[in-house]
């Protein structure tokens, strides 16, 4: 397990470095020099050179990369071209919205999907098993932003029960207020996420229900519930957990889109605005932080999988996706 942990940790570090390199190169391949932001139209070559020197874009690429990496490692993410405010604190302020949104939606999706997926498999021969399966089949095709629009229309514009969007100015000073404005976005993401989760849970449950070990344990006199608790749950959890890591990352991406629907001041709307205004420090900061998050989530999911399933501990590659 220790060997595995070290190898996986090394893999995480290498992936982070590579992701950083990809991000750096992609941003440097963008048309236009970052120094342009300091200049006005019609700047003479001398001014351009001065600006390039000030920004550092006249140095060779590897040197720029090392400098940039050093800044990223200390979370010095540069300053916005537009507002000239530092990017790091702004991201931190926005995470206050995005992280609770992602985690709440993810938790709700898991809470909905696990029992529903189990029922869809366990009751496959009753009328509601296939129905649940059909609903989840339909659900994975629903665009998350469209569901958000429909929920806003019905609960905010028509029934006036919940706010249509926005977030309290003072963030979480009044938790009830903040939660109310997050309720619709959370439900939107959770519904779409749970649709695909249900299919994984159902598939994992079907595998367990078919298994010889469960039949043997039942034949030895255990009750169905007992067998499921002792053996079923643990075995079904392995593929589901590896999926959960990916799903959590997907939930985060869902949050990026849904924030635009609900006008939430989170990381997603920050990124969308940064792209629209060609504000590259903002874009690179948000992408760096989110890729970091996604890779760390994958790392944790792999560890959790091996804690649950001792059979995987000798292996290094990821199992059933």
């Amino acid at each position: 397990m220790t060997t595995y942990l070290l190898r996986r940790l090394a893999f995480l570090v290498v992936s982070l470095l590579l992701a950083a390199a990809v991000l750096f190169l992609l941003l440097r391949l963008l048309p236009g020099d970052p120094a342009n932001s300091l200049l006005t139209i019609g700047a003479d070559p001398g001014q351009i050179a001065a600006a390039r020197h000030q920004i550092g874009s006249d140095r060779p690429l590897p040197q720029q990369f090392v400098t940039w990496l050093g800044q990223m490692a200390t979370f010095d993410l540069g300053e916005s071209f537009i507002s000239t405010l530092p990017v790091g604190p702004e991201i931190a302020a926005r995470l206050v919205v995005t992280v609770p949104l992602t985690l709440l939606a993810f938790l709700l999706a898991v809470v909905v999907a696990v029992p529903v997926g189990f029922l869809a498999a366990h009751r496959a021969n009753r009328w509601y098993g296939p129905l649940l399966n059909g609903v989840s089949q339909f659900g994975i095709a629903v665009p998350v932003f469209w569901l958000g629009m429909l929920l806003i229309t019905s609960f905010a514009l028509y029934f006036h029960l919940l706010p249509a969007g926005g977030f309290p100015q003072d963030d979480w000073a009044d938790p009830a207020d903040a939660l109310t404005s997050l309720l619709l976005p959370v439900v939107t993401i959770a519904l779409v996420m749970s649709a695909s989760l249900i299919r994984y849970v159902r598939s994992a449950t079907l595998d367990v229900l078919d298994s010889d070990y469960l039949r043997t344990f039942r034949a030895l006199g255990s009750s169905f519930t007992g067998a499921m608790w002792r053996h079923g749950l643990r075995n079904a959890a392995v593929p589901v957990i590896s999926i959960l890591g990916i799903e959590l990352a997907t939930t985060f991406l869902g949050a990026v889109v849904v924030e635009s629907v609900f006008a939430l001041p989170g990381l997603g709307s920050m990124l969308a605005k940064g792209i629209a205004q060609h504000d590259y420090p903002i874009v690179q900061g948000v992408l760096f932080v989110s890729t970091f998050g996604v890779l760390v989530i994958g790392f944790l999911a792999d560890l959790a999988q091996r804690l649950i399933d001792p059979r995987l501990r000798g292996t290094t590659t990821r199992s059933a996706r």
Partner: protein
Amino acid sequence: MNAPEPPVQPLTSTPPPEPLAEPLTSTPPPEPLAERLTSTLLPEPFGGRRRTGGRRSPTLVIGCLLAGAIVAVAVVSLFWLPFPPDDTSGGRLAPPGPPHLLGTDKLGRDLLTQLMIGARIALTAGIGSVALGGVLGVAAGLPAGFATRWLDDTIAALLDILIAFPTLLLAMLLVAAREASLGSAVLAIGLAMSAIVARLTRVLVKRVLAQDFITASRTSGTSWPRVVAEHVLPNIWPTLLVNLALQLGLAVLAEASLSYLGLGAPPPNASWGRMLQEAQSTVLTAPLGAVAPGLLLIMLVVGVNLVADGLRDVADPTRRRSR
């Protein structure tokens, strides 16, 4: 006397195992060793021995109907549209009724026309991304499957990193670097997809290469290119095709999301995602404009997913249906 008809199976139940459905008296002719070995471990190629014959997959039929309807609309839109795409003569937010069968949007453009163009855009985005991702992915995954241990580990790790890179964010970055257009969206989605396809191809190729019939084929003097063409590709493409069909649905949704964020095809040839974004402000006065594009999107994606499930049933009858 006539044998009694076998009872009709309800659609939801597990189909009876294939061998029992055949008459027990006729012994099947002996097959080459290689084929018997593949059939136990790998899904059957579509043209293979166990062609499903009369048994159709209902999933496949329903899926083809749903997706086919959208394809038909897209094809018609190439030759005929009720109104020119940028014709705003109908007046703003006209209610449904002749001459504007589904009404107009807030700029006065005919909704039906927009929806028909949207079908074309959605299909272009989906098929374009899958073509790009499929070709790149197979081209990268096929050699990776042959690679030796050290190189193979490296490639696997690289692919894992690429997959960890959030697709939608990559797409947004690419669109920011180029311009908001259908081409940028397809390029970004296709690139992101190629990593997933490459990883799947690599795993499938490795699984085929471990089979005895590959060794047998090599021992009898077949060259590697011929082994790939005759044994590897026919054995991996059913699984690959099913996966590509699923990816098509995801690509359509991804393009809609990008368009919704204003990063897709610009109007007047706008995608359904863009239409939804524009209709958001008038959802109470003109609900149809905010509902119809979403429903069509779902119809296309559900249709494509059902086709994928159906193909899997046809490709591999031994598996439980629609897992």
